[in-house]
């Protein structure tokens, strides 16, 4: 009867074995300890066709478990030139290479270290993997003193180690909160991945979405007619559950607002319910908005690839806003998407002077904080609606839910959107409980699958990395009976489902607008008995 599981399946990992975590480092010095590649802790390399489509170097078939990684002959020169170029282009990189004092404050802040115990998952050591090369090749002290100054020679093993550990960082920036100098490992990981990309060391879970997005407009590779079908299918479901037929404006010229959301909302459970939530909201408001098939992705796996790729993918959003002649742009619930929109888009592809300062057509509120990018977060938009009493809400419809909220890394630490989601949640459901304070807001823990690591072949690291978050969910599950984890991030909605199933079974994941739509009393609705999942609004046991 014993079923056999594979390392890319959750059930393969027994919890009591996984939690035997030794945080004490090994006796061998880190420079002499090599990583062990095994299914569960690395991601498969990018398929050549994806690299070719994007014009990336060295497309070929290879595997991290092979001895020969088929690097270009002049790989060392490529790396050293790559480092030099980036030191000249990014002050962050240069300063972060120089000023770390190895105080260790960041050590136990990384979810991968907490759940795995590998010392190279301490942010400081992850950075040292790159810093050691920087020292020996770019600093006076390192050139003279070598390993005494923390330098080491650049070898193929170093490159392999980079590939291992820089794809075991989710760029969540939790460590940078605690660093006395604000050293941001995300920044270092981004540089390291750019360097690896120069040698053709990419992972398919990132490069396929990138290539898809470049071609079809979204990570999933949904073509225009497919997107139309998907949204119509959602509209059918909405009609079944609410009796209201929502309209689906697509590629509509002259709309006031372009709506962009992560494509994860089009496909995977439970993201699709969030998408249905947006559709219900917009319809009820009578918003003159449009979806776009060309800019059908808010997310940006370029962020996990290179700065150039971020820009190449992100360019579609402003281009489409211009083509359609909208006034401003509204963005859905997504994590890394909002890092790009908040911190990169305007710089890379702006100025968006062809758009207007965003103003809610319903409340008249001017979103002055977005006056330059012209892009507003949907939770900001909805919070403003609720504040002005523009939504008719019946929060008791969400009474079967006991909700906790997961601050997604990027909206938290690269944007600072903490109160808006809480305000919305408190208005659409009656049972809301916070997780422990060191695990929320700016100290929130990653789902373990961010920055393009959320694939099943990475299962062991995802479960390990998900421990701090999953455990905090489990805590409120036991204490308050929490059964629903809200998150405004598409990657979260996918990966936290696994994390919860493993560390806090029976807690399910939801987007915020799924709950909003369930609580909304719609014009012309039939008696609401089902939620957007097609499940009874009120649990059977309830009196």
């Amino acid at each position: 009867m014993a079923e056999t599981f594979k390392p890319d399946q959750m059930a393969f990992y027994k919890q009591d074995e996984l939690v035997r975590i030794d945080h004490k480092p090994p006796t061998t010095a880190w420079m002499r300890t090599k990583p062990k590649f095994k299914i569960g802790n690395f991601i498969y390399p990018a398929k050549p066709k994806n690299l070719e489509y994007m014009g990336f170097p060295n497309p070929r078939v290879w595997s991290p478990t092979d001895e020969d990684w088929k690097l270009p002959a002049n790989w060392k020169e490529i790396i050293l030139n790559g480092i030099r170029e980036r030191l000249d282009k990014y002050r962050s990189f240069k300063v972060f290479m120089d000023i770390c004092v190895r105080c260790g404050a960041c050590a136990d802040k990384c979810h991968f270290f907490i759940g795995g115990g590998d010392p190279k998952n301490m942010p400081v050591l992850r950075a040292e993997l790159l810093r050691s090369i920087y020292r020996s090749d770019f600093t006076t002290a390192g050139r003279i003193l070598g390993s005494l100054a923390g330098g080491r020679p650049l070898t193929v093993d170093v490159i392999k180690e980079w590939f291992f550990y820089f794809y075991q960082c989710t760029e969540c920036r939790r460590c940078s909160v605690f660093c006395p100098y604000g050293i941001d490992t995300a920044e270092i990981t981004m540089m390291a991945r750019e360097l690896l990309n120069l040698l053709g060391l990419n992972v398919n879970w990132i490069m396929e979405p990138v290539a898809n997005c470049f071609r079809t407009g979204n990570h999933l590779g949904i073509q225009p007619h497919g997107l139309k079908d998907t949204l119509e299918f959602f509209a059918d479901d909405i009609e079944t559950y609410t009796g209201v037929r929502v309209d689906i404006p697509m590629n509509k010229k002259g709309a006031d607002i372009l709506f962009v959301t992560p494509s994860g909302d089009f496909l995977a459970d439970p993201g699709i319910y969030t998408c249905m939530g947006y559709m219900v909201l917009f319809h009820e408001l009578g918003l003159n908005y449009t979806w776009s098939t060309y800019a059908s992705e808010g997310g940006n796996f370029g962020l996990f690839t290179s700065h150039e790729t971020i820009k190449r993918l992100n360019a579609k959003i402003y281009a489409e806003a211009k083509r359609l002649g909208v006034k401003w742009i509204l963005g859905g619930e997504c994590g890394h998407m909002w890092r790009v929109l908040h911190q990169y888009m305007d710089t890379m592809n702006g100025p968006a002077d062809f758009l207007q300062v965003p103003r809610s057509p319903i409340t008249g509120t001017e979103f002055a904080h977005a006056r330059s990018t012209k892009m507003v977060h949907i939770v900001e938009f909805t919070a403003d609606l609720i504040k002005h009493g523009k939504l008719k809400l019946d929060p008791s419809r969400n009474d079967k839910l006991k909700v906790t909220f997961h601050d997604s890394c990027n909206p938290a630490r690269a944007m600072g959107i903490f109160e808006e989601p809480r305000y919305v949640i408190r208005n659409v459901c009656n049972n809301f409980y916070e997780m422990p304070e060191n695990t929320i807001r700016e100290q929130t823990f990653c789902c373990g699958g961010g920055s393009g690591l959320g694939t099943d072949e990475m299962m062991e690291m995802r479960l390990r990395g998900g421990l701090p978050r999953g455990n905090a969910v489990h805590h409120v599950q036991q204490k308050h009976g929490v059964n629903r984890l809200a998150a405004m991030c598409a990657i979260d909605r996918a990966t936290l489902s696994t994390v919860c199933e493993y560390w806090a079974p029976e807690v399910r994941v939801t987007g915020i607008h799924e709950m909003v739509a369930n609580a909304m009393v719609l014009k012309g609705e039939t008696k609401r008995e089902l939620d957007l999942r097609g499940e009874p609004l009120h649990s059977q046991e309830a009196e």
Partner: protein
Amino acid sequence: MKVWYGFMGVVALMILAGVGVQALGLQTLFGVVVPYAAMGIFLVGVVVKILSWARSPVPFHIPTTCGQQRSLSWIRSSYLDSPHTKFGVLCRMGLEVLCFRSLFGNTKMAVRPGPKVVHGPTQWLWAGAMVFHWCMLVVLLRHLRFFAEPVPAFVGAITSLDGFFQLGLPELYLTTAGLLGGLLYLLARRIWVPQVRYISLPADYFSLFLLIGIATTGILLRHFIKIDLESVKGFALGLVAFVPVLPVQAHYLFYVHVFLVSILLAYFPFSKLMHFAGVFLSPTRNLANDSRARRHVNPWNAPVKTHTYAEYEDEFRERMVGAGLPVEKT
């Protein structure tokens, strides 16, 4: 092993200075030439390093936001942790530099059976770092009494405050004890906390031992050897005025002290000690969280190859028309 490299390095330097002065009579070398050279390296090195950092632009606006953004008028934003004004940034940086605020928020994690992952506050590292850095600053300021005549009033005030408890004769300054105590704490945790030991480099121990060596020789000179302060002052004033006069009959440890300080100065620009300046240039801390309100300009913002709408429509036009989606070209 790494500890020993650091320790032996400093001991070797001490012996070098001791022997040089005591056996070879190289007072002028260790008292005048080396200090001037070290100061020169320090000043040039620090400026060059800072200019080198400053030469690299900040292409993107990447503050780490540790508090509520400024968005809707009725939501209170976090002025310090998510500053939206220059003044807010100044306050955030000020607290960071003067009070080590990020480190103050440090936590300690433990995985208990269950499993139960817990994170509790811990301020030991913060306290050790604060004690060391502030005492170091006061000790430095106290040394101004050697380098300035008349002694600035604030130096006198600090000094008398520092010797408030009047322990021993000459009285022990609180900051002397704090400096050495702070350093010993930082050294102890580097050696005993397994993770910190694992990440430590010989250079980390070297900096600590160098500072400990400087503090120890200083204490010995003041409290045990009771060096003639007038002649030290004459020496210091001479250095400043570029008419160096060696102190008469100075103990060899005085030269060891001066030599270690010289090494520290010369080593400074090439080491992690540059964090004192780098922290001001850290883009995750010194930028306001206003990137949607004000456009941040990247000086090297290069054009990239994009996939245009026209290319997209060319590929999918037929299917778009088939699905009833509007197209540009029919």
